[in-house]
């Protein structure tokens, strides 16, 4: 491999990290405040993709603008879901079986509703930009991936800002740190939870709309992203926005380089060989197991005092 090939791999990993961060950040917000492992996240991603598609097909709205419109639309949708379903769950400091089952069931409902509405056809959004690339020497960078990367960075910065600078952010952080103390000092946990659920859903819908620019989608769209989102938030430390960025970057780098760089292994002496590409999905799960065993608070736990926003 030449230096250009390595550089191309690094860029590819960075862009992939952007996609991963965009899809995982909504899940972190909801877990952080409510300790709910939101299995319906995959359903929200899927609905976000269809939202962008409908906006594009019916109203000729560019999917980027469609993703921006998805933010308020899914914020309201998320608050409605919270009001109708989630608020009845028993409060807990740890994820409960009831919340897991509720969100899993809701995901199934969303999926089946999508089958009723859109059928089993694989949809995709094809714009004049879809196959366009930016060329820097021998390196080609997909314009759509660049846009998704930029959107992911903006959403992470925006969330950090909300967490650090707004009243709502302070309420969220207090609930994450100590829900009982937060309530004693007057934080309205019901209202904050509802807004947090809305915010998490908004970012899931936003991410789904962005992903629709890159991949074909069906009502089954979501599970591969859901699994990677799990890995990322565990890597990042479950409740940390900056941890999401770090987790996404680590996962993307490992997935990209593991199949492109010869790895050392020992059998009658040291050998080097490539990891077969079909093992690439296993990278994330091996990483998940290792992190849970060695760093249960994720990589962000290492830098807890400085990095943890909540």
């Amino acid at each position: 491999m030449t230096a250009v090939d390595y550089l191309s791999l690094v860029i590819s990993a960075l862009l992939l990290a952007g996609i991963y961060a965009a899809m995982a950040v909504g899940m972190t917000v909801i877990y952080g405040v409510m300790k709910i492992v939101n299995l319906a996240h995959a359903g929200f991603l899927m609905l976000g993709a269809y939202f962008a598609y409908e906006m594009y097909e019916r109203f000729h709205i560019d999917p980027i603008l469609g993703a921006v419109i998805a933010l308020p639309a899914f914020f309201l949708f998320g608050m409605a879901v919270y009001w109708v379903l989630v608020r009845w769950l028993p409060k807990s400091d740890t994820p409960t079986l009831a919340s897991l089952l509720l969100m899993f069931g809701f995901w199934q409902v969303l999926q089946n509703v999508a089958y009723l509405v859109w059928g089993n056809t694989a949809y995709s959004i094809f714009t004049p930009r879809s196959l366009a690339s930016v060329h820097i020497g021998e390196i080609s960078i997909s314009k759509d991936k660049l846009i998704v990367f930029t959107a992911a960075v903006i959403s992470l910065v925006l969330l950090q800002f909300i967490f650090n600078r707004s009243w709502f952010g302070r309420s969220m952080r207090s609930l994450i740190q100590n829900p009982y103390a937060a309530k004693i000092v007057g934080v309205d946990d019901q209202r904050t939870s509802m807004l947090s659920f809305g915010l998490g859903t908004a970012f899931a819908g936003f991410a789904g709309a962005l992903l629709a620019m890159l991949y074909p989608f069906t009502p089954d769209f979501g599970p591969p992203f859901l699994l990677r989102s799990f890995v990322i938030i565990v890597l990042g430390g479950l409740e940390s926005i900056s941890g999401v960025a770090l987790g996404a970057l680590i996962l993307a780098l490992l997935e990209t380089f593991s199949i492109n760089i010869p790895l050392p292994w020992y059998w009658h002496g040291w050998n080097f060989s490539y990891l077969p590409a079909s093992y690439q999905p296993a990278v994330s799960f091996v990483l998940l197991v290792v992190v849970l065993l060695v760093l249960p608070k994720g990589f962000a736990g290492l830098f807890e005092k400085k990095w943890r926003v909540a």
Partner: protein
Amino acid sequence: MNDKFFRISICLILLALLGAVPLLAQDTINIGVVMPMTGREAKPGLYQKEGIELAIKQINGAGGITIKGKKLQLKEIFYDDGSDSAKSAALTERAMSSDNVVAVIGGYSTALGEAESVMPDRYQTPWITAGAAATSIFSKGYKYTFGTLSPVVLLGSTTAEFLGSLVDQGKLKKGLKIALVVENTDHGVDYVNGINEWIGKHPGYFTVVLTEKFDLGGTDFSALLQKVKTARADIFLSDAHLQDYITMQRQYLQAGLHHQMISYGARGPESDARKALGAGTDYILAALWWSDRLPYPQVQKFVNDYKAMYNRPPDSWYAATAYDSMRILAQAIQAAGTLDKTKVRDQLAKAQLKGSLLPGMVLSYGPNGQAGYSFLVTQNKPGDKVDIVYPKDAATGPAVAPMP
């Protein structure tokens, strides 16, 4: 108490016998159909179901099948396996054990077909797959398993043979390097074996510089495509299912890759792909079991009938192989003259469907239960056009090589 128990028992036995009456005096021939209507394989599954239903409609419209002097109508008992292997096997078992079916048609795609293929011999019920062609299904000595698709090894070797013919014509140079990227299934393994088999028998034509596998339903192939780029190959051959084909080709183009020839195995002309990628699918090659461009009158009739029933033309080969699977099954039942599954199986093993839609116009199954007709190679052309480019006698247009 004993008397009461006795009377209840008699009532239950009578009820059970009443339930069995329809089985004894059956006026329909139940055919189990297990296909994915949801999940990853939903679209091809739908097309196969439509092909079967068109054949059933036509056979019933012509009066049905005569069994012991009585005309019986075909009745489809349908199950959606959700593109899930375990569910697919369970539903096939259910159809064979509880639905009184004479045979089951199912098994799109290879992974689902493999899961289903263990059931037919267990329940001694004929099973035809119109969408799975991996050697592994037909090499286990099963007696009740039949496959309407020619082997995937042949798909690979036909692709290599076609590329070799381009070298002979001077359109491609000798000694070109091939990158092989295939799905991590027996389908993919067979495809690689087919390519390597041909290259082994024809030294000097091509060299394989990269062989990689990927998981079905992948989301991001950028790292894998980077490996393809690094391999500096001249020809890119993949074996992928529809969604993976769309995702990979999109990322291939975005990565600025270009090869002299590209193929995704048996995928290429699908309308979903052309809608998703526009001109990005132009010049892609596909080795197919069937094409609507075949110059047979029955193909034109099938296309017209399909359009009349579903208001759209058949998309690629999926419906045609399913249609012929149903027709050859009906012919075997008619020849057996009974609904005895073993006799139907024996007839299927020696059946010859003349006037078949498939290349060669005769469908029959080999000793291992799998059909063995030749493949067609098609190439997408600009303006949503698709030409058969190989074999020569069926060609509807010239092959464009190397790709512009």
